[in-house]
Structure formats: structure tokens, C-alpha cells
């Protein structure tokens, strides 16, 4: 399969027509779609960052004392980009493919499967990034309230990197969408992806000094995203974690796009 038919559909109008369709549906359901992304980070930051943080006066990161809220906030940005993209391309895409038959309707027009795939992935990454931006605004609110100090301008660098990470995670979700036989098997990706990746990401706590856990974390793109964004927003440092996160995301895309395409061709068209 030629590479251009795998990756160039990302730029085709059909893929963006799919994204635009999902955006319209989101705007139609704005009252239910927009509350969770605003409420969730506020609750998380208040419960963990402020509430739990008060119990941890001697919290340190990279050998320096730091407030737990400052440690948590960048990690949550990374975790949100991962979870939201994965969730969208797994649950929502599966619903559209299997139950709502939205894909089948789109595939009878000028939209081809490659466009549906890229449309779903781009939408998942865009929505995740919208949630990230919303969260950034909430964090700025905390900053204005004197509860949090971060290098705010670096958020503009963090957001595109997180977008790329979301895009890669969206294809992990689509891989499961292409593979899982029914909704009854949705527990599997949580067990195989969300749990281990979230566990070894250092989102909520610094990784304990366990060798195998650090080896695992080295291979975890979410760990590099979380640490990279943290160093950026706390220290203002462009660390090696960011190129690692970018590189891993690109490798994931390189590997996953053809696999997802082949699996979905088989699933939807019954082709060998």
C-alpha cells in the first residue's frame, strides 16, 4: 500500500467534513458535552491538588520541594489528552461504526474509509485538545487566585505537542475499535492500555524508585508527555522528554495507521 494513501487523507476535505460533522453534533449537545470537561478538572484539582496536597507538606520533585498542585496540574493536562482521545476513538467511534451506522452512511458518499479513519482520529485529538485548552483556562484561574504558579506562556508550546500525542493515542483507540467484537469487550482496552499506561505515567505521583517501573515508563509516551509538559510549565525547560514524546507519537502513527486501516477494511468490507 502506498504511503500517500495512508497519510495524505489527513489533509483531504472529506476527513475534515467528518470532523465538522462531529463538531456539529457536539455543538447540538453542548449543554451535556461541555460541562464535564470544565467540571472534571476543577473537581480533580480541588480534590487532589488542593485537598490531598494539604496533607503533603514535604512533597518533592526532582529533589526540589514543590506544591502538589503544581506537580499535578501539568500531569493532568497530559493525562486528559491521552484519555479523551482514547475514549473518543474507542467508545464514540465504535458507537458510530457499529450501532449508529454513521460510517456506513458516510461511505456511500465521496467519503472513503481512509477519510472516516482520519476524521475520527483528528476529531478525537481535536476534542482532547479542546479539553486541554479548557483545563489550561481553569489552571490560569487557579493562578489568578494565587493558588498556582506555572510558566504560563509555555502552554502554547505544550498544546501542539499534546495534540500530536492525542492523535497517536486516538489510533490506539481505533485499533481496539477495529478489533473488539462488541461493546461487551470494552473492559479489555481499559485493562490493557489505560491501566498500565496511566500507572506508569507519573501523572499523579512521581514514580517510585523501582527499576522495572522506570524501564516501563521509558517506553510509555504518556510518561514523557507528562514529564515534558511538567518541566516546561514548572521550570520552563525544554527537556529531552518532549522530543521523546514527539518521536514516540510519530512512530505510533507510522505503525498504527496501516494496521488500523487494514483491520477496518476487513471489518467493514469483509475484505481479506
Amino acid at each position, binding site marked *: 500500500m502506498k504511503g500517500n494513501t495512508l497519510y495524505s487523507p489527513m489533509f483531504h*476535505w472529506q476527513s475534515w*467534513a467528518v470532523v465538522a460533522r462531529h463538531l456539529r453534533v457536539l455543538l447540538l449537545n453542548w449543554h451535556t458535552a461541555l460541562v464535564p470537561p470544565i467540571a472534571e478538572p476543577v473537581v480533580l484539582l480541588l480534590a487532589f491538588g488542593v485537598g490531598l496536597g494539604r496533607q503533603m507538606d514535604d512533597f518533592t520533585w526532582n529533589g526540589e520541594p514543590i506544591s502538589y498542585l503544581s506537580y499535578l496540574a501539568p500531569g493532568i493536562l497530559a493525562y486528559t489528552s491521552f484519555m479523551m482521545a482514547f475514549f473518543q476513538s474507542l467508545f464514540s467511534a465504535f458507537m458510530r461504526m457499529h450501532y449508529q451506522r*454513521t460510517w*456506513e*452512511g458516510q461511505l*456511500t458518499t*465521496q467519503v472513503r474509509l481512509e477519510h472516516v479513519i482520519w476524521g475520527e482520529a483528528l476529531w478525537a485529538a481535536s476534542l482532547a485538545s479542546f479539553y486541554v485548552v479548557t483545563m489550561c483556562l481553569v489552571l490560569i484561574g487557579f493562578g489568578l487566585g494565587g493558588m498556582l504558579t506555572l510558566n504560563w506562556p509555555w502552554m502554547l508550546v505544550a498544546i501542539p505537542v499534546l495534540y500530536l500525542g492525542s492523535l497517536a493515542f486516538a489510533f490506539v483507540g481505533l485499533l481496539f475499535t477495529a478489533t473488539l467484537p462488541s461493546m461487551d469487550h470494552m473492559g479489555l482496552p481499559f485493562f490493557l492500555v489505560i491501566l498500565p499506561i496511566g500507572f506508569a505515567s507519573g501523572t499523579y505521583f512521581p514514580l517510585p524508585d523501582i527499576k522495572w517501573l522506570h524501564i516501563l515508563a521509558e517506553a510509555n509516551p504518556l510518561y514523557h508527555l507528562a514529564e515534558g509538559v511538567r518541566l516546561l510549565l514548572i521550570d520552563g525547560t525544554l527537556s529531552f522528554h518532549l522530543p521523546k514524546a514527539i518521536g514516540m507519537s510519530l512512530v505510533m502513527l507510522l505503525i498504527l495507521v496501516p494496521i488500523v486501516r487494514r483491520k477496518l477494511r476487513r471489518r467493514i468490507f*469483509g475484505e481479506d
Partner: protein
Amino acid sequence: MNENTILQVDGLVKRLGGKPVVNDVGFSCSKGEVVGLLGPNGAGKTTTLRMCYGFLRPDSGTVRVGEWDIQKDNDPASRAIGVCTQDETFDGDFTVRGNLVQGCRYYRPKIADRDERVEEVLEQFGLKDFADAKPDTLSGGYRRRLMIARAVVHRPQIVFLDEPTTGLDPEARVLVWELVDSLRAQGMAVVLTTHYMDEAERLSDRLILLKGGKIRATGTTEKLLGDVVGEHVVVVSRTGADLEVVDAWFRERGGKHSVILTDWHVPMGSADLAEFVTSFPDLRYEVRPPTLDDLFLALAKEVAQ
């Protein structure tokens, strides 16, 4: 391919799961013509249709829509095509009007007069009163109208209808037939699949009979019936006398008789009928013209043999 031909299909072959599903199928459809694809379950109708509108890639063979090859020039070819699938694929998140507008958004060049066109189609398909309702709240007949309306909203040259009236009540079916007739009157080429014999008979200018993925016969209803079934069908009650003798007589001549409840339905030509009449002067029976139901039964027998 003459200037009126919108669809030209040649030598289509498709294997799914290692098995041949469509084998060397070819046909054409012209402007203002309705072509019916007919056949029993598993005959390859939907697979053929799906290759025609570019949903499936044929293993070999070509589909040309107007001047475009559906595989090589997918974009312009798809622009000229409208599709109403067997399953309902409308967008439940949008209203009836929203579905038509959204349908337009999947095509380029854009429909310049989109909003006017949507209103026109709502009117034509009797959907105006439900324009702001969600499709899920409509009856089956109106949902099917919406599916067909969405298939034609971008003004295609050809529309593919996959079992357009399956599951509809008789009144709703007639309304869909009228819509198909109006599409033909507008000069649109229509290719449809159906299980309903009366539907195929009433709607189609030309029928293509598929069996086991191959074309078994093509032509008008009368020609198909004559070629595959025969000129007459003799209906004999299985509750009468001398049945063993009658059964043996049928078997000697190929045993094509079908059992429907308490009757035998036996297709035969004029010569056989004359012989039958003289052979069984005291037997009670009915002679009727063949229908497409007989055609299906005859095909099923061929498959079984």
C-alpha cells in the same frame, strides 16, 4: 456505451472469505431506466450493488459511472452516485432537514443552492411536516423516504436502492414505488435490488436475475419467466387421487414441480401442457401464467440440484 448509458458494469468478480460471491457480472443502466437486480438470498445482489457504488473493490472487472471509472476516478464518480442502503444509516443526531443538509456536505463540488435544494427535496418526498423532527420519531415509511431523499439530494445521475421497501407496510411500499417512478421520470438512472416479486415487476424496465453470484438471465419480466420458468404453471392439489402417477409423470419430465402447502406448482411449456391435459383427463387442476415467485422457486431448485 452510448451517450444515454450512465452505468456500465463489466466482468465483476468478488471473493469474500475465500469464496466467490460475484462471478463475471456485467450490465448497464441508462438515463431514465430502472434496472432490477433479482435473486434469492446469497445470490450476490448486495455485493454487486456495493461494488457498483464503490463501497467494495472488485477483485476484477470495471464499473464506469458516466465517463469515470469508480476505482480510478472515485471522487467524480461518487459525486454522480446516490445510495440508499438496506439498513437505515441516517444521522440520528440531526433532524430530517439536518440529515439532508449534512448529506450535501459530503460532496464536492458543493451544491450551490443547497438550502433551496433541501427544501425542494423535503417537499418532493412529503417530508416537509417532519423537517424539524428527529428521524427516530418517524414511521418506517417516512424513514425510508428520508433515506431515499438523502440519496438524491445532491442531484446524482444514478441512484442505487438496496431493498428499498423491505419491512414496510403495503401503503408505504406503494409510496416508495411512486417516488422511484418520479426519479425515473426526472431522467435519473435507478438500480435496485429487491426480494419482492411484484416490486421488481412493477418498477423495473429490465431485470437481471442473479444466482450463485452469476447472471442467470436478463430481460423483461416476461422474458425471464419464459426463459427460466416456462409458459404456464399447472397447480395440482396433493389431496386428490392418482397422485403417484402424476408425480411420476412430473419426474419423467425433469421434476421441476414445487410443493407449496397442499399443492404442486408445475412449470411447463405448451407442448407438455397439451400432453398433461390428455394424460390426466379426470384430474382437477388449475393453469395460470408464471409469476416471479415461480421464478424464485425454480432458481432455488436449480441451486439445490
